[in-house]
């Protein structure tokens, strides 16, 4: 980035304010700056709240009549990954919009969270490979494990990210997602997809609802 600066100052630069105008300017600038610099977590909550149940629902739909359990079909997995790519793309655009030009602690936090997230999620799938290698049943390797563990880890990563931005509504929703996903393991290989997906969706839509209510209350 290049910066060449004209250092001339306009004559109106030292213009003062009457107190009412100052209060209005302060409120307006604070509102605008907060809107521009803060991540639109309402949009992200709504997006996740709608897409997670659909993605996990597609997988559940593909396995619901399997006896014995074999795992999701390739078509269902493909659709799920298509949704993941779509959501990642939109989320990235939302984060970039708000974080353009922001540095300092924010950048350090983002790098730390990216590293923790990458290790956590890659680690989860490495363990899945190890389970397959150890000839653990398909019900665990392609059912209970992938329907729950990535969401438990994802929820925890989301909670850390939300706490860094002091977004306590999203923090709570992210922890709820982890808890629901952990509990979903008891629903069996088929039920785990439904419980995880719909539980996570409900937590995120609840978070979006709280945020909307807070916005209206202001």
């Amino acid at each position, binding site marked *: 980035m290049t*910066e060449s600066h004209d250092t*001339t100052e306009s004559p109106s630069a030292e213009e003062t304010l009457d107190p009412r105008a100052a209060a209005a300017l302060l409120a307006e600038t604070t509102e605008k700056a907060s809107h521009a610099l803060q991540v639109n977590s309402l949009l992200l909550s709504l997006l996740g709240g709608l897409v997670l149940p659909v993605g996990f629902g597609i997988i559940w739909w593909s396995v619901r009549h399997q006896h014995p359990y074999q795992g999701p079909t390739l078509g269902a997995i493909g659709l799920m990954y298509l949704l993941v790519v779509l959501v990642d793309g939109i989320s990235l655009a939302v984060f970039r919009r708000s974080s353009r030009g922001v540095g300092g602690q924010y950048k350090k936090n983002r790098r730390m969270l990216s590293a923790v997230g990458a290790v956590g999620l890659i680690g989860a799938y490495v363990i899945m490979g190890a389970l397959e290698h150890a000839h653990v049943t398909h019900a665990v390797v392609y059912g209970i494990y992938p329907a729950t563990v990535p969401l438990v880890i994802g929820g925890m990563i989301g909670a850390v990210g939300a706490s860094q931005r002091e977004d306590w509504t999203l923090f709570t929703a992210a922890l709820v997602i982890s808890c629901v996903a952990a509990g979903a393991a008891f629903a069996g290989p088929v039920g785990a997809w439904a419980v995880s997906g719909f539980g996570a969706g409900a937590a995120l839509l609840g978070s979006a609802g709280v945020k909307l209510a807070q916005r209206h209350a202001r």
Partner: protein
Amino acid sequence: MNEGELDPLIHVPARLRILATLAALHEGDTLSFTRLQEMIELTPGNLITHLRKLEDAGYVKSEKTGAGVASRTSVALTPRGRVALDAYAQTLRGVLDGI
């Protein structure tokens, strides 16, 4: 409270907008000069002039990284600047209550 108690350094539209914008960042975060300029809609010269005054008072700090065409300036509110803006807002409320 009367209007005279308002911090004269902050009680100027451009500097009030600079401080209010930087206050929207979390503590420890910085904002690039370019993004700040876009948000405040001031000319680079005006922004530099106001930033210098705020920096002299210890309300903001700026840091330049890189050199030449790759140089990048980032700006942040200092703890002292945050306290001053809070005090300004409180005084302003007092003044408005008295009107």
